[in-house]
Structures are given as structure tokens and as C-alpha cells.
């Protein structure tokens, strides 16, 4: 009996073609990885969402079980503590990201196109970024501590007496200084990489046309650097919104609640008071706020499509 392998292949090919009309092959091939990714990424978030709707306490378990949006009402919408933490966070983010961006850009300009200077100076400038977060907090705590810290000692020599950690404003400023010290190098390295990748021709054309160095930077360099700056600022905003180790090491949220941030109160309520349900509702809210910020940043043009 004659076989018809060609006919079978044709039928198989037709079937595959029909299937592809329904589910494109690329989706079929990607599906296992996509499902795995969704599982490992979304599952913790979904579990956090579930916890946030319960009254789960580490020691007592669940008393009433699912309490719906009660945690969101009491611990997010109506909580002065949470609002205060958000305000502290907002002030912190605005100040540190602004200073880090300006300082980082200025330092990058100083090193741009100067390989010899970069070779010797860059490693030193980048060092703070590699120090552990808690070590940075401890180091700055001792530097600002009354009686033993070098900062109050030096300031007192010029007649300025500040009790950094007893004053609500200066306590937050001390944390900001520590963060600026640690993360300005991150901005520097991103900006420097961006500057080094810029084409030389537009700059040369501007200089030939008589533009001063400042005008070249303002009218040529900065516009071309905008996508890099936007990404760097966005990354720092997201990171700064999670500030925690420095608060833990330097002030524990005090004096009063002057340096409490979102991450700190989630930690305090979740791990010290054991109210994981309440802490989860605050964590979910903080996550949604950061995602909302991303959305606003994206659609306002801060993160243009060609950046990603």
C-alpha cells in the first residue's frame, strides 16, 4: 500500500496554521515562561493584597478573619501617622533627589571627556555607593551625635550648636545628608555614561557658532541628556521612597514621629507590633502610590517611549 507522508505533513501544517490563527506561535512559545514569571511576581503581591484585607496578627492569628477595607480606612485614609509618614517621605524625596541630580550632573560634567581625571577620581567618588546601607546609617549617626560626633563639634567651633537628633527638622536633614552622600555617585555614573555617549558634532557646531561653554551645556547637552536624566530621577524617586535602613540606624523614626517614613511604619506595625494585616494595607497603598507616580511620570513625558 502506498504511503502518503506528504499528505500527512500537509494536514499537520494546515492544522498548525489554523491553530496559529487562534493562538500565534510566539505566544505559545512564550507562555510557560510568562506564566512562571507571573506566578513568582504576582503571587507575593496577591498574597499581600489578601493579608491587607484581614486582621492577621503574628501572635494571635486572625480574630475576625477578612475585614474588607477596614485596614485601608483606619490605617491609611484616616491615619495621621500614615499621612505624616507620607509627608516626611515626600519632603525627603524632593530634597534628596533634587540635590543628588544637581550634584551628580555637576560632578559628571567635571569628569566628562577627561579620562585621566576620571581614572583617579571616579573610584573615590563611587565608594559611598558600595558601603552597606546600615553601615552608612550608623556612620552618619555617630558623625551627627551630640557629644561624640564630629559634625556638632566642628559646628560648635563656629558658634553653631545643633542637637541633630533632638530636633524634628535637623533629624530629617541628617538622614537626607546621609542619603545624598550615598547615592549621588549613582547619579554621577549614570550621567557620566550618558554624557560620554553623546555625539560630539552638535557640541562642536554650537561652539563654532560662538556659543559659550554654559550655552552649549544648557542648549545642547541638557536637552540631549533629558532621557538619561529622566530615567535616573525616576529610579532615585522609587528608591528614595523606600528609605528605611537609615531611619532604623539613625533615628528610629524620632524625635516623635518626625522621621517616620512609609517603609518605617510598615516595619514598625508589621514586625514590632505584629499587626501584619494593617502593615500589609499600608504596604499595598505605598506600592500603588509609587505605581501611580510611574504612570504620571510616563504620561507626562518624563519617561518617553524611546527611553525604554
Amino acid at each position: 500500500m502506498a504511503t502518503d507522508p506528504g499528505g500527512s505533513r500537509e494536514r499537520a501544517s494546515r492544522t498548525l496554521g489554523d491553530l496559529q490563527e487562534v493562538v500565534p506561535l510566539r505566544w505559545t512559545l512564550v507562555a510557560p515562561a510568562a506564566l512562571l514569571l507571573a506566578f513568582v511576581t504576582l503571587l507575593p503581591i496577591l498574597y499581600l493584597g489578601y493579608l491587607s484585607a484581614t486582621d492577621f496578627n503574628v501572635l494571635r492569628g486572625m480574630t475576625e478573619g477578612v475585614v474588607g477595607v477596614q485596614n485601608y480606612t483606619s490605617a491609611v485614609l484616616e491615619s495621621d501617622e500614615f499621612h505624616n509618614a507620607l509627608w516626611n517621605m515626600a519632603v525627603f524625596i524632593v530634597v534628596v533627589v533634587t540635590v543628588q541630580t544637581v550634584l551628580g550632573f555637576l560632578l559628571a560634567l567635571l569628569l566628562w571627556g577627561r579620562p585621566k581625571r576620571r581614572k583617579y577620581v571616579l573610584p573615590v567618588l563611587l565608594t559611598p555607593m558600595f558601603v552597606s546601607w546600615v553601615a552608612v546609617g550608623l556612620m552618619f549617626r555617630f558623625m551627627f551625635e551630640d557629644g561624640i560626633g564630629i559634625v556638632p563639634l566642628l559646628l560648635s567651633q563656629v558658634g553653631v550648636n545643633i542637637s541633630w537628633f533632638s530636633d524634628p527638622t535637623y533629624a530629617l536633614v541628617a538622614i537626607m545628608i546621609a542619603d545624598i552622600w550615598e547615592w549621588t555617585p549613582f547619579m554621577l555614573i549614570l550621567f557620566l555614561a550618558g554624557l560620554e555617549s553623546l555625539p560630539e558634532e552638535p557640541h562642536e557646531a554650537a561652539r563654532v557658532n560662538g556659543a559659550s561653554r554654559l550655552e552649549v551645556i544648557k542648549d545642547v547637552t541638557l536637552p540631549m541628556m533629558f532621557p538619561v536624566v529622566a530615567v535616573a530621577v525616576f529610579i532615585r524617586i522609587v528608591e528614595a521612597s523606600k528609605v528605611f535602613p537609615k531611619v532604623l540606624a539613625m533615628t528610629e523614626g524620632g524625635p516623635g514621629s518626625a522621621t517616620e517614613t512609609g517603609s518605617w511604619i510598615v516595619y514598625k506595625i508589621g514586625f514590632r507590633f505584629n499587626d501584619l494585616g494593617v502593615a500589609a494595607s499600608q504596604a499595598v497603598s505605598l506600592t500603588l502610590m509609587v505605581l501611580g507616580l510611574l504612570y504620571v511620570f510616563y504620561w507626562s513625558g518624563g519617561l518617553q517611549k524611546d527611553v525604554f
Partner: protein
Amino acid sequence: MTRSESGDRASSTHSEPARWTLTGTASTAGPSRRRFLTAAGAASVIGLAGCVGGGDDGSGSVSPDDLDVAPDELEVDEINVLAEGVADNLVLAEMSDRFEDEYGVTVNWTDFGYEQTQEEASNQVAADESAYDVMTIDTYWVGDFALGENLLPLDSLIGGSDVVDSDNYLEEVWDTVAHFEGTTWTIPFWQWTLGAGYREDLLQDDEFAAQYESEFGEDLQSGTESVSAYADMTVNITEMTGGDVHGAALMGQSGTKANDQWLGLFQGKGGTFIDEEGNPVYGDYRQEAIEATEDWIRIIHEGGPDGSGSWGFPEVSEHVGRGDGFSAINYNIFYVNMNNALSENTENGQIKQYDTPGGSPAVGSWSLGIPANLSEERAQAAWTYIQWANSFEMRKQRILNGGSPVCYDTLDDDEVVESNPLLWENLEELITGGKSISKYPGALQANTRNGEELSAALAGGKSVEDAIDAGIEAVENAME
């Protein structure tokens, strides 16, 4: 004995996770309150019957013979202990070699900082089976642990023990940490009542006292009777010495540090968070709280060194130990180190402990407890170890090695008192007038939040009245 590095988690190498039942057989079924409450009875009947009959009056060394627990009766190879890395715990950790020699059971101590110890303890008692057999439990946690039935009730075990005698423990200490709502959950281990320490050498210095009297028209006193008089005295001394010696070094650090210390002043004014029945009554003592806070702020701002508004006990200890402070209100265990530092840094500097102003200090204590989620074998070994650690000899040796007393018999012991008369002579009197710092669930949250409000008032971020009102609301919410 081995001690794991800080941060290491003790490993569990024991039998199947199980809970004690009335019949003494291990069950993997879910726990119920009744089952827990009867567990101790089962333990004494099945696991520990006759185990402690060989002891004398509790004043001897606890050897296997004394406990009637032969080494081969302990069916475990090791006991894992969770503790905060502070003096008393470390002393016992070092002494645990003797337990190993006597019982052939390795004792692994894992020590963390305070917050990590609390997190680890909470997580482990909530797990299917705890990695730790014995946990050091702070006053603040007992109410929550008891409410969650996370610890093994000890009444029946104590009833069958010739070593652990509840009447031998300072009543206020036992009340604050061991007993909660009719059940005994832990055995007091070392107490951290906040006593008032005064520079005895300056009190005895005629020239210093005469100058004080001539400038302010009153005697320089120790053990000042009222909170306001204490505040006046601290401000006067700072003024008199031009800030060379500050009248007081207090802790203004936000949270429990500020709260713990302030509680002594608040109670000295007659205030309390709860009444005898455990009902929240902080709001009834609003005026006393305001007055205590005003005095507390005055002491720190005018009688204390710059920056002490953010200090915790290390800074206070360091300041007084340098000889720069006349008095302090601090966890009494730290006066040992302050005196050591004073003897190095000054000619005759000495701190002596007295009653707090108003005579009602905040009484707190650490204790030893057994997680409820242990197998019978592990729980039996844990109880044996706790008894061993609480024998007279061990308690006495711990104090002589730097620990703090919790029992009458050790405070009656001449050798103990003579080892540190400046601190231990007045201790019983100090504690007897005190009040428990946390005799209710949600204590850590209540005290932390109240301390945050006090710190805000101290830093000028809130008026004293607003801070106290917010504190009252926070404390009463936490107690619900």
C-alpha cells in the same frame, strides 16, 4: 556549650512537631486553649513526674540528682535558647557549660539585638514548631504571647518543682512578667526596673553640699521625694556647676526609652495606665501626665546635657560614667557598668541606687519561657534547663558575674549584697513600691506610641497637652 553567631538561626534537630496533650502523647492536631492549659499538667504527670523531688530548699546546686532527671532521661541532644545579647543573658550562656557537663545536652545560645529577638520570638512561636526550646521573654511581650497561647503554661510544672518557688520572686517582678490572667507563662530571669541613681561621692562631699545649700537654700538630697523637687534639684545642680556636672541624664529617645523613664515620673505623680482590674484609666490621669511631662522636659532641657533629647541608655551610661552627670533614671542593670566607668574616670565616683522621685518606678523584667509548639521531649528538656538556671546557686552566680537579682533569697544573701551594695541594698525597697510596666496585651505598642508622643512634645513638635491626649488615645487603642 556553643553559642551561634549573632544572626544565626538555631537549627532544629528534634522530633516531629507536636503539642502536648492531656494524655501526654504528642499530637499534631491543631492547638486549643484547653489543650494548652492542660499541657503543663500532662507534662508534670507524664514527663516530669517526680522529676524535681530531690531538691532541698532550693538553695543548692541543681544537679541531675537534685532534679531527679537523669541525664539519659533527656531525650534531646541539644537545647536552643533565644536571647537578647545583653549582660545577664551572656552570663548564663557562659555558665551553661555546667549544664552540658551534668546532662550531656548541648546548649546553643543565639543572641540578637532587642528588636530582632522580638521578631524572631514572634515568628518562632507562630511557626509549626519553634527552632528554640527556651526563649527569653520581655515584659512587654507577655500579654500578647499569653493571649495568643504561644507559650506553655507553667503552673503545674511549678507546682511540682522544688526549685522554682513563685513566693521567692519579688512580687512585683513576678506580677509584671510571669503571671497573666490567672496563668503563669514564664519564670522571671532578670529585671530592668528603672531606679534613680545618684552620685554618692558628690552627695557625701561636704563642700559640694554646702555650696548647693548656700546657693539654693535647701539640702542636697538623694531619693528626692517628689518629681517636681527632683526636677528643681537637677536644674539647680547644672546651674551651680556651670554645666560641668549635669543634674540629670535622662533618655529622650522616641518610643519605649522615653516612655519607660517617664512612667516612673508619671506614677510618682500618682498616675497609672491601668487600674487594679486591668482596665485602661490613663485618661483619668491626664493632669498627672501633663505635669510629669512638663517636669520631664524641664529636667532634660534645663538639667540635662545638650542632645539628651535623643539619648537612649548607652548615651546616658556613657555620660554618667564619664563623671559628667549627678543623677540618672535608668534601667538598674546599667548602673553596674556606670560604676565601673566612674571608677576609671574619676577619683571616687560612685553611683548609688535610690527610689525614683515619687516612689513608684516602672518595673520591668525578662523571663524564660517555653514555646507551646514543642514536642514533649523538647519541652521537658527546656523545663529542666529553666529549673537548673533558676536554682539558688545559678541565680547567685549570675548576679556575682554581673546579673541582676529577681528573688528575695538572693537579696538576703550577704555575699550578693556585698558584691554591689550601692545597687542591691535598696533594690527590694525600690521594686516594692513600683508598678508593672506592661500588665496588659498590646503593651509594646501602647508604650511605644506613648513614647513617640512624649518625644514629639520634648522636641517641640507638639504641645504637652496635645501629646498627652494623643498618647491617651494611642494607649487605649492599643489595649483594645
